């Protein structure tokens, strides 16, 4: 027993991720934490998307289930679980059954390497970013098989479009990622890294987010990635596979109930996953903003208070809405519920002020806040843009993003080793070229 406690405690002193430390207990705890957190994030995202989109579109969104529709996602989940699970007669049953699980597995597995903090990741892989890209590309298989197994025209067309789109944009995405990885090698030993934690630490060491590195190259790479990741997750304006006005619901037309909710879950966790990649590569991962301009212990303290203040602000909004609730006996339970929710948020906020918690949580908070920013962008896109046509989508992917990405890669490489390049590569190449011209003419 004592050994076990010691085994558990030993990890807390080590400065590693549970995977790297080889501590199975903490690895399991982290896995549970990440997946519970992810599920909560997806549920919250469901509510937020409806609410934010509704407010963008001058309507209220869910208002009935719980105060301000807060319990709507739970009601939805219950509805989906209780719905009849239909498998079409002519479908390929086994493949139809497997497909959603492939998608969900791919979407969840990538979170193994997402770094919420220098030690807050399930494990740190040497090939972290490669692992994320590789495993998330497996989701295509699930989509293709789902469309095919339904044995119906619209899902098949949806699946073909979807997979063609995802495969195409993966290329541009990869190029943007490589340019960020090249930036990690700007240190004394000239060694880059593919590790997710290593990438953020490189940004810390260089005292600059890669977004602003080699201005404007970092921003261009980030832009390519930001466009490609929307296409990769099949969201508006690249939501052709699900183009409601053309294909009803794309590859998951024939799915219902629990299986459909798996696709839903996978879509949202994939969105969070690609956003995590973008945050890690360009936005400094768990690092707090303005590390250079606003440095010093005072600012550190001020920034470490922000998580608690955020929760207090949310609690304040809850209390404000509580006051504004209609004063009618029928609304009593809703009012109390909202007040209770506000109290819960306030309690969390106060806990976050405790110094010991504050220090441990601020990394996770900043990472999540940046990812949340991307989630808001997703919703914003959906409220703003019309949908691309399929050929235009392919044109953007292959004829705009891919060449830009290639050019970017080369320019980044040249810029990254400026002095060496001039002496060893560019000048000899130019001389050789001139020499060649002289011989020809």
């Amino acid at each position: 027993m004592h050994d076990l406690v010691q085994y558990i405690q030993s990890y807390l002193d080590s400065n590693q991720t549970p995977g790297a430390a080889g501590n199975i207990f903490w690895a399991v705890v982290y896995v549970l934490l990440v997946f519970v957190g992810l599920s909560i994030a997806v549920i919250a995202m469901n509510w937020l998307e409806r609410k934010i989109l509704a407010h963008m579109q001058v309507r209220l969104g869910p208002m009935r289930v719980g105060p301000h529709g807060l319990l709507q996602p739970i009601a939805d989940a219950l509805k989906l679980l209780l719905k009849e699970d239909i498998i079409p007669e002519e479908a390929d049953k086994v493949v139809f059954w497997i497909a959603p699980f492939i998608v969900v597995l791919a979407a969840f597995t990538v979170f193994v390497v997402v770094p919420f903090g220098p030690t807050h990741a399930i494990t740190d892989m040497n090939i972290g970013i490669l692992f994320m890209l590789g495993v998330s590309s497996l989701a295509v298989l699930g989509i293709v098989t789902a469309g095919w197994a339904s044995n119906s025209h619209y899902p098949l067309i949806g699946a073909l479009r979807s997979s063609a789109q995802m495969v195409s944009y993966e290329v541009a995405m990869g190029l943007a990622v490589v340019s960020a990885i090249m930036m990690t090698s700007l240190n004394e030993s000239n060694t880059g890294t593919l590790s997710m934690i290593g990438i953020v630490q490189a940004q810390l060491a260089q005292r600059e987010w890669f977004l602003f590195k080699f201005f404007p190259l970092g921003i261009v790479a980030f832009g390519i990635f930001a466009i490609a990741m929307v296409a990769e997750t099949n969201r508006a304006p690249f939501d052709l596979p699900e183009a409601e006005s053309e294909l009803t619901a794309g590859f998951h037309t024939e799915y219902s109930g629990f299986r459909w909710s798996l696709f839903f879950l996978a879509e949202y966790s994939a969105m969070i996953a690609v956003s995590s990649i973008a945050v890690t590569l360009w936005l400094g991962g768990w690092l707090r903003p303005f590390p250079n301009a606003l440095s010093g212990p005072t600012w550190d303290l001020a920034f470490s208070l922000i998580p608690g203040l955020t929760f207090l602000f949310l609690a304040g909004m809850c209390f404000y809405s509580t006051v504004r609730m209609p004063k009618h006996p029928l609304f009593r339970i809703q009012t109390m519920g909202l007040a209770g929710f506000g109290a819960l948020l306030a309690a969390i906020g106060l806990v976050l002020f405790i110094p010991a918690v504050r220090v441990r949580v601020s990394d996770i908070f900043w990472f999540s806040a940046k990812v949340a920013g991307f989630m808001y962008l997703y919703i914003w896109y959906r409220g703003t843009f019309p949908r691309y046509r399929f050929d235009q989508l392919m044109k953007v992917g292959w004829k705009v993003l891919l060449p830009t990405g290639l050019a970017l890669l080369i320019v980044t490489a040249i810029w990254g080793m400026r002095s060496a390049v001039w002496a060893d590569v560019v000048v000899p190449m130019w001389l050789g070229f001139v020499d060649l011209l002289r011989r020809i003419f």
Partner: protein
Amino acid sequence: MTDPNTLSPLDLDTPDKTFLDSNELVINMGPQHPATHGVLRVILRLDGEKVLGLECVIGYLHRGVEKIAENRTYTMFNPYVDRMDYVAAVSNGLGYCEAVEKLLSVEAPPRAQYIRVILTELNRIASHQLWLGTHALDIGAITPLFYTFRDREEILKIFEKYCGARLTTHAFRIGGLQYEAYDGFEQDVKNFVSFVKPKIDEYEELLTTNRIWLERTKGVGVISGKDCVALGVTGPVLRASGVKWDIRKAQPYANYKNFEFDVPTGQNGDTYDRYIVRMIEMRQSLRIIEQAVEGIPEGPIMAKVPKVMKPPVGEIYHSIEAPKGELGYFIVSDGSTQPYRIRVRPPSFVNLQALDLMCRGQLVADVIAVIGTLDIVLGEVDR
């Protein structure tokens, strides 16, 4: 006026080069499909995603309006016309009432005419707003739908206050109006005009310069002015193809000759031009409303028409510029209380004929855009 004869010749029958390709695929779209605006069924012949040709199957909403007319009196038939183009019920009513008035050789008093113009133009805006919302939704932009519905609501409120109905208004009577404008009608209309002007800018902000919107609409569903004339296509579709023709200007009815407004035209005849033309039309309608609401004269609202209407024997064709194009009524009277025959010339029905021509060589996703841009109402197509 642009002479349509100088435009490119009609080319309906030239088959596409790849017509005999073995990859031809026939796909059925509708009658239950979210983007066919009702119960339109389109049978598409595709080469991959390219449309080789299509056939419309209509009639799912046929109610025999023309047959019903022969078994009702002139007054009783009046509410039925609202059910054809239910998005622009007021325009339908205006056309019918004016046609019967012509047959009776009476004219609505000026005050009634002004109120008629205000309500009809409000209805034109409402119709265009509904078109814009659904059209943008088909192309994938969700938000304009809610914006337009929010603002259309204000128009429907005015209708409701005026005559108690929001959609199938039955606002006009043969010979004038049944209801005097309610207290504060002018103020409501003025408020609406100042309310909706910035809102139209809002729609345009979302779409007009949006790159994706431009890519989805420019060069899509092109139809030349010549083809429009040959196919009888009217309304904004005709004007977007460069033919400056609006019945309100060409053969003014009601008292449109008293108002100043411009007739917008496009050059390319593509989906984008039709969008722009309709946006300008909304603004021009506001201009007409502003002038009309300033100049409403005092006086009676009903001309002297007999309680039991027995128009003299004869026939009349009267058409107005409905939001969707030329809406005509051909009425034959045999001197009895019931019309001998009423023929409705519905703009949607005739415009829908152009779908085949406009979609050839386009992609499947464009068919949806073109159906949207034609602005059809199946209640009017099928009658």
